[in-house]
């Protein structure tokens, strides 16, 4: 067992967990933050993307012990004061989601893109999202959402 202490969505948390606990498991099972999804177990689909110290990472292939002391932001921590983050609002406006399963990871990944590059081209958006698989939307409205959010962020 390992004791881990980190800040999740602005709140300090401290738990005793088995050494091999993945960050995705920690968020879902220990903190009941079930917005972070697991879709593939092999780090391909991106449904599990969260931010660690502001950068997007795949939580299904990260040991929670490895991010000890970090600041973690999950999809639950994105909206502020009951107001959707501009990326969340853009996904809603452009119909960038259907079943909603890939959405948390897709949104977290897209937020990091706009933090990294202010006004990405369509091609840059599509290439950035290479690590996030969506089976419903054909990606078109996701690209539209990122462009829409770029005008607001």
């Amino acid at each position, binding site marked *: 067992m390992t004791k881990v202490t980190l800040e999740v969505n602005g709140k300090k948390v401290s738990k005793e967990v*088995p050494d091999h606990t993945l960050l995705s498991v920690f968020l*879902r*099972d220990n903190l009941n*933050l*079930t*917005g*972070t*999804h*697991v*879709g*593939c*177990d*092999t780090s*391909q*689909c991106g*449904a599990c993307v969260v931010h660690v110290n502001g950068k997007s990472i795949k939580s299904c292939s990260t040991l929670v012990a490895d991010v000890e002391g970090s600041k973690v932001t*999950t*999809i*639950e921590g*994105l*909206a502020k004061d009951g107001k*959707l983050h501009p990326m*969340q609002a853009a*996904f*809603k*406006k452009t*119909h960038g*989601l*259907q*079943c*909603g*399963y*890939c*959405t*948390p990871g897709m*949104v977290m990944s897209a937020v990091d893109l706009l933090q990294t590059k202010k006004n990405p081209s*369509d*091609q840059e*958006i*599509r*290439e950035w*999202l*290479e690590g*996030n*698989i*969506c*089976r*419903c*939307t*054909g*990606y*078109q*409205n*996701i*690209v539209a959402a990122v462009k829409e959010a770029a005008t607001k962020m």
Partner: protein
Amino acid sequence: MASLVGSRVERKEDTRFLQGKGRYTADINIANQTYAVFVRSPHARAKIKSVDTSKALKSSGVVGVLTGKEIAEDKIGGLIAGWAIRSEDGSEMKVPANPPLAKDIANFVGEPIAVVFAETLDEAKEGAEKVKVDYKVLKAVVDPAEAMKSEAIHDGVDKNLCYDWLLGDRKAVDEAFAKADKIIKVDLINNRLVPNAMEPRACVVDYNTASEEITLYTTSQNPHLSRLVMSAFGGVAPENKLRVVAPDVGGGFGSKINVYNEEIVCSWASKKIERPIKWVAERTESFLTDTHGRDHVTHAELAVTNDGKFLGFKNETIANLGAYARVFGTVTPTYLFGPCATGVYVIPAAYSNVKAVYTNTAPVDAYRGAGRPEATYTIERLVEKAAMELGMDKTEIRMKNFPTQFPFKQTLVHTVDSGDYVAGLEKAKQMADYAGFEARRKKSEANGKLRGIGVSSYFEACGIAPSAAVMSLGCGVGLWESAEVRFNPTGQISVFTGAHSHGQSHDTTFAQIAADELGVPMENIDVVHGDTDKGTFGMGTYGSRSLTVGGIAIVNACKKIVAKGKRVAAKMLEVNEDEIEFKDGEFVALKSNKKKTIGEVAFACYLPGQRDEMKSPIPEGDEPGLIESSFFDPANFSFPAGSHICEVEIDPETGNVKVEKYTAVDDFGRIVNPMIVEGQVHGGIAQGIGQALHENTQYDETGQLMTASYMDYTMPRADNFPEFNLGFTCTHATSNPLGVKGCGEAGAIASPPTVMNAVIDALGGQEISMPATAEKVWKACKSIKKSNAKAA
């Protein structure tokens, strides 16, 4: 009040999904739950000599281990085939037993043999490793084309043949072919696909020892149907003691229609071990055991005249059912495939012959489009090849054979109520700048690239119902849909539907429809689905049926609400019922212009009296309350249609195929929410392009699945696609009062042949099979280069 039907209304469900507040099955935990891990066959075909659970039972944290022996002893029934198909000779199809846990023989890699329950997931995994199964490995049958020549894998199923089905008239086809100037032939493989909903399958079961009720939370497209099957065929519990909840479900695409082994086993076992059970599939388990799609081997021919008229069509197909026949497994390659194989054309004579075979692979069932993509691929490859061989323009040959009169009696089964195929193709040509293609091709050529253009025109039969028709074709249940509209006393409305949303946006579109019918803001309406304890009954969502069947049930229930409201309002306003008009949520007495809102009427229905006065607004013969339901069974399928045009550019040095342009023009009748319909089309096209260029399910000769993770199976990514260019034409369906047609599957039906026709066009007519991967295309380019060099 402006109509909501037809508006781009933002989705109600998004607010929860976007904040991580969706509640999917794997998000549900029940106090004191155990974790299930299944022991699965590592062999494609093996006799199970013995299963030793003794070590597993002693393993740390293990609560119980169950095998095929116990489930057989408890007489729990197996998985079922939902449709009975008859062979050409009149004999019934052959269906092997499919027990939830295999006892004597395993028939595909991943088939469950035993299950271990433990206090933690890690302990359950460890326990599962300690279950010792002694197998005698047998030679597996993997290739569907070879299955009929191989040893029978199931007792009583000669040649591994489930059925040898014929639709159409062989003699008439022979006569038509005798008159032809030219016979166009294709040999096609419709590649096997894994549906790959992003949410892996899961179930959580809670058995209440006091009420003896089982609650099953599961990833299902049709919870009521699951309950029916588990109760009637599984014998797990009576229907009134079994509650099935399909909460938020992360995509289905057909793979979550079936009741699966794990749901039956965990429901049965929860009662046995008297503990809640949670099971969540890992992605590789999903690859191994979710139902797969397609997997046809087809030879088809089209008889044509020199001026491009179609005279006859024949189709000989071997369809792979996998190891077992499941719910839509047997109908997908027959009635969902054969009738649509003559496409949008007037073809005087046709037949489809399908031999469905069993192999030692995962069961094959409905996958987005189910049969209709295979049909469209068959006819549209033939038509494109005919144009090429006759030297005709590929759009002209299609126009020449389109029906111009509707209803159109299609050759094999359907009478298509409405459509305008010419208008669709004309619009697609214009939007795709079809006329400018040659200039673009030359430009690509100047850059050392090969550019091709492909067209396909499709129709499909969806909105799966009507009951009488589907039952006459062998379906085991009626495919109507139900709705209940419950007006609460304070004016909010709950709309219960038997359809199920796993991405289809029912919370929004169904609220739009009900809001228009009732004249109330859609914010006042909640759409409720996915829980057998809430809605009365329902058939679920597949076959693009939610709106055309389930949506109409809502409309009809709303109309009953308004009809009763009129009677009540008439009494309240002291006029005759025929003097009342209902408009924008108000009942208006035409002469006096006195009004009652629908909210006031609803309130009066629940509180029918007042102090000091014996006066009820409820007319004689009516009851208090304002709740109405409807079971809608349409008169016909719905028949969306359209034409798609694709342009690809191939780099002959790498074989890489780039989809440069994709134009889709579809006719879905009246559109309720254009934003949502466009999203459905985008997703369908992407899946179809995935089939054409990227995805392939590969078993090796021993039946091991080689593509069992996202590292081996190519899922399409954002950078595989251009921006799709969508257009619509609109002819109203006559089989339902809204005039709507299904839109969920069209994209996946039309796009594979559109893309492949473009690839083959770029390759100068050289045939190539799906998926047209860079490797295959590069090889084709090399062989073209070689033959060109020889010719020179």
